[in-house]
């Protein structure tokens, strides 16, 4: 195929695309730069000095609050949500390869979870726990709230994966005498592994950054986004930006690990 000549349309659209990327990344860049100011720094440009003072201060005890514990809490919750989302969505994906009574109901229930305004999930779980006399905690109510957000994405991805899945490998394994369990662990799982990396990363980051569905139901121990939201009302130093920079770096590291793992598993595909 010969390369079509680049038209005026191409350059106009390329400019719009460039502006869009700038729009996405520009503000974040400013936050990173401003978190690298000296101790006398403020919330706006120009930068006052250059140091790692504010970034280091994130890891210490300080008057605006402590971030290591909420971070560890969010990280643990993210891992839990990730493990459950991957396991549950793979199981449901396997089930949806067959037609069964009630599959439409479960499908629409999942879609509903995706499009119900987040505050309803938060409010509903909060009131339900209240009436049942249960304590809201990050590992119970907030975990449930997070799953209502991550599972629909995970499930829809798994549906797509199993739609494209070539069953001949599995049938071959079965013809050679493999049990269902054997053919799953030795044939199906290695084949869908790259997609699972994607599901895992998506679930973890969605949970790690989740705010709206957890706002009312994380109990007395805040997750990191809730802690940061609390900061926005009373912090006027670059410490705010430093926390933002550190959590964003964590997100980027997770994405990088996922991409590396994805490439690793893709290279082992038949």
């Amino acid at each position, binding site marked *: 195929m010969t390369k079509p000549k680049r038209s005026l349309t191409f350059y106009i*659209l*390329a400019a*719009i695309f460039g502006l*869009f990327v700038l729009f*996405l*990344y520009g*503000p*974040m860049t*400013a*936050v990173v730069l*401003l978190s690298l100011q000296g101790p006398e720094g*403020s*919330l*706006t*440009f120009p930068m006052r000095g250059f140091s790692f003072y504010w970034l280091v201060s994130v890891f210490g005890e300080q008057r605006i609050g402590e971030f290591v514990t909420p971070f560890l809490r969010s990280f643990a919750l993210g891992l839990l949500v990730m493990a*459950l989302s991957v396991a*549950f969505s793979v*199981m*449901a994906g396997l089930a*949806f390869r067959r037609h069964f009574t009630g*599959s439409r109901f*479960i499908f629409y*229930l*999942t879609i*509903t*979870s995706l*499009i*119900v*305004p*987040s*505050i*309803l*999930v938060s*409010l*509903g*779980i909060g*009131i339900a726990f*209240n*009436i049942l006399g249960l304590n809201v905690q990050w590992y119970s109510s907030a975990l449930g*709230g997070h*799953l*209502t957000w991550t*599972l629909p994405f995970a499930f829809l991805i798994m549906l797509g994966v199993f739609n494209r899945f070539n069953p001949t490998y599995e049938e071959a394994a079965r013809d050679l005498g493999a049990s269902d369990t054997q053919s799953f662990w030795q044939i199906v799982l290695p084949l869908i592994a790259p997609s699972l990396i994607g599901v895992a*990363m*998506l679930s973890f*980051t969605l949970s*790690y*950054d989740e*705010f709206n569905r957890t*706002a009312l139901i994380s109990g007395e121990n805040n997750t990191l*986004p809730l802690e*940061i*939201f609390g900061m*926005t009302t009373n912090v006027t130093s670059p410490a705010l930006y430093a926390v*933002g920079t550190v*959590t*964003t770096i964590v997100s*980027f590291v*997770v*994405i990088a690990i996922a991409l590396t793992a994805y490439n690793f598993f893709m290279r082992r595909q038949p």
Partner: protein
Amino acid sequence: MKTWKQLQTYLLVTPQTLVFLLFLLFPLLTIFVVSFWEFNGYAMSPALILGNYKAIFTPVYLATYLNTFKFTVIVWGLALAIAYPVAYFLAFHIHDLRWQIGLFVLCTIPFFTSNIIRMISWIPFLGREGILNQVLLNLGIVQAPVDIFLYSDFAVVLAMLHLYTLFMVVPIFNSLVRIDRDLIAAALDSGASGLQVFKEVVLPLSLPGIAIGSIFIVTLVMGEFTTVRLMSGGQASSVGSAIRNQIGSLQYPQASANAVILLLVTLAIVVGIMRTFDIRKEL
């Protein structure tokens, strides 16, 4: 053997279904029931009253609903206007698959970072001493710093676009890359102009993508309370932020009635979009 297979299917789908029954359906039913309860100033008690719903149909509340619709329509329109060219560029003007994936990932990465941080990141731009004010002062367009960039409806819309436009880009891109290129070649061969090809072939085939993106934007913006609160400095109101305030003062029955209406309105819009466009084949 057949029954075991069936049982196996149901066992496999049980965990996910339980999650949605316990943490979605049951809470929604609870909201519905509590919306008829009474509130005596400090606690709620079971009842069957319509007072919470009647309270919604007052001018103050209706204004809040109108304001929420306003945000939804503005953000939807602008998100579509931004997302379509971006998706179109990726789908039709980037021919190298590696570049296409790379640029697509570039657009999606911010989606994996914290919404709160992304809101905060507008402060250095829009604040009283922010970049925008400095530029305007230096150009002599304004004489004194303008306060209303941050903490205004403008800031709310800007931040929502920043957060949600991607939800429009992805479905549109998805439907654009699936368009059979032979259709376009055929239209061009039959003498259609570029604009005609767009109007008669590309646009109709991308409508399902627009519909899915619109559903995302509508449901996200209709239930918004964080962005509205943070970016308007507590000045603007939306149904979500009203619910949030009522929860803050423990008025669960009133908050629930509001939530029921919000859900019904949102679902009505979603069903309307789904009826208008056949999105089934995109799923």
